[in-house]
């Protein structure tokens, strides 16, 4: 046994940037955040924005099986063979952080079935503010919160808010109706995150998810450079 050697001939996992045949694998971006913050709607918007430019696939992690995957199928944002649902046994954060095996399998199966892929979006099941993705599963992560969940969430922080590569504050169109102060949310997020980027968006506006899509494009450019 060579437990002290990290390199072996056929790497089993995970964060390795290449497929077994030597090709560079798809960039994997995770989307996490609380229940109802608009993760699935953001995924749908990203698929519509990016599907002409890139070969895309989506893995959803539902708490109750296939609800999110079925929303994406109904919306027809991608052909059905490019969308896979992972079942998480009542623990969505376990499936994206502590035991990522089912998600890695889903990503590999998508690459085998419809690859080569440029980008795989991995959407977590709605969870709490501490749920983050393992670096063994994704290369970058987006944390999605919304103004209706309370404008104190950026101030409360937590690993998702403070460490995600991109923080999205969603449903800004609702701010006046729920008494949320967008300026305060942006300032608190800036204080919690330093240089890490924040996007405030409303998917009902003209611009939709275009800022997030631009961020993903930049990530893809860096990945393939």
């Amino acid at each position, binding site marked *: *046994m*060579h437990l002290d050697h990290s390199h072996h001939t056929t790497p*089993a996992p995970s964060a390795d940037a290449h497929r077994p045949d030597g090709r560079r694998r798809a960039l994997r971006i995770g989307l996490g955040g609380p229940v109802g913050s608009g993760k699935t709607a953001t995924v749908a918007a990203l698929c519509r924005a990016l599907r002409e430019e890139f070969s895309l696939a989506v893995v959803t992690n539902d708490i109750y099986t296939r609800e999110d995957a079925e929303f994406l199928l109904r919306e027809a944002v991608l052909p059905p063979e490019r969308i896979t649902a992972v*079942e998480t046994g009542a623990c969505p954060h376990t499936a994206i952080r502590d035991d990522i*095996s089912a998600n890695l*399998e889903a990503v590999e199966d998508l690459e085998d079935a419809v690859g080569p892929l440029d980008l795989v979006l991995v959407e977590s099941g709605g969870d709490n503010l501490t749920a983050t993705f393992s670096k063994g599963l994704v290369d970058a992560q987006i944390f999605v919160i919304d103004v209706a969940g309370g404008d104190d969430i950026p101030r409360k922080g937590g690993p998702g808010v403070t460490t995600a590569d991109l923080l999205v504050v969603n449903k800004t169109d609702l701010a006046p109706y729920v008494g949320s102060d967008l300026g305060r949310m942006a300032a608190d997020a800036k204080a919690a995150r330093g240089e890490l980027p924040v996007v405030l968006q409303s998917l009902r506006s003209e611009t939709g998810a275009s800022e997030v899509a631009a961020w993903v494009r930049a990530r893809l450019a860096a990945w393939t450079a």
Partner: protein
Amino acid sequence: MSRAALLVLADGRFPAGGHAHSGGAEAAVRAGRITSAADLADFCRGRLQTTGLVAAALAAAAALGHDPAELDAAADARTPSPALRVAARKLGRQLMRAARATWPTAELDTVARAFPKGAHQPVVLGLTARAAGLGPEDAAHCAAYESVSGPATATVRLLGLDPFDATGVLARLAPELDGVVERAVSAARLAAVDGVDALPAASAPLLEIGAEAHAAWPVRLFAS
């Protein structure tokens, strides 16, 4: 053998996908067959003496070096439910990934190539034990324990059962579990001479039927 390696492999947090499976507990809870710690004890005892025994024997045989392909076919023959075969292969594939990262060996690489979509989980468990320098008793203990620990933790989530009661159920099953392991290892040693037909084929029809029904539910918490 290394006792510490056994603890690593048997740890419920070993990242091999088991957390998403209830071992038939979700179907049994929905059918009203598990409503209390006493029911859980009965369910686990039944599972241990059937699925648990078969899994332990397959794992022990794999740990002894029996041909994995032959054991995989033997596992298929002992798993009537297509849904359970799918679940067992999924879990086998996930365990294989964790095993190759944790205890990399040429043997694991070879079996992974032969079964790209996964071999039955107990077979992979036995091979993993082998790669970790463990013996057939260790492999059988892991398999038998997993056959009851999965349903116990799932029931805590599904029913809000007191976690101390659920753990107490597992503790009280320990002597029986040791007995199952003993029978499993004897059968595995016999199979080395007489072939896989010497392995136990105890079946639990309600688990098989429940798994088929469960796989067709539109809404469920666990994958199996």
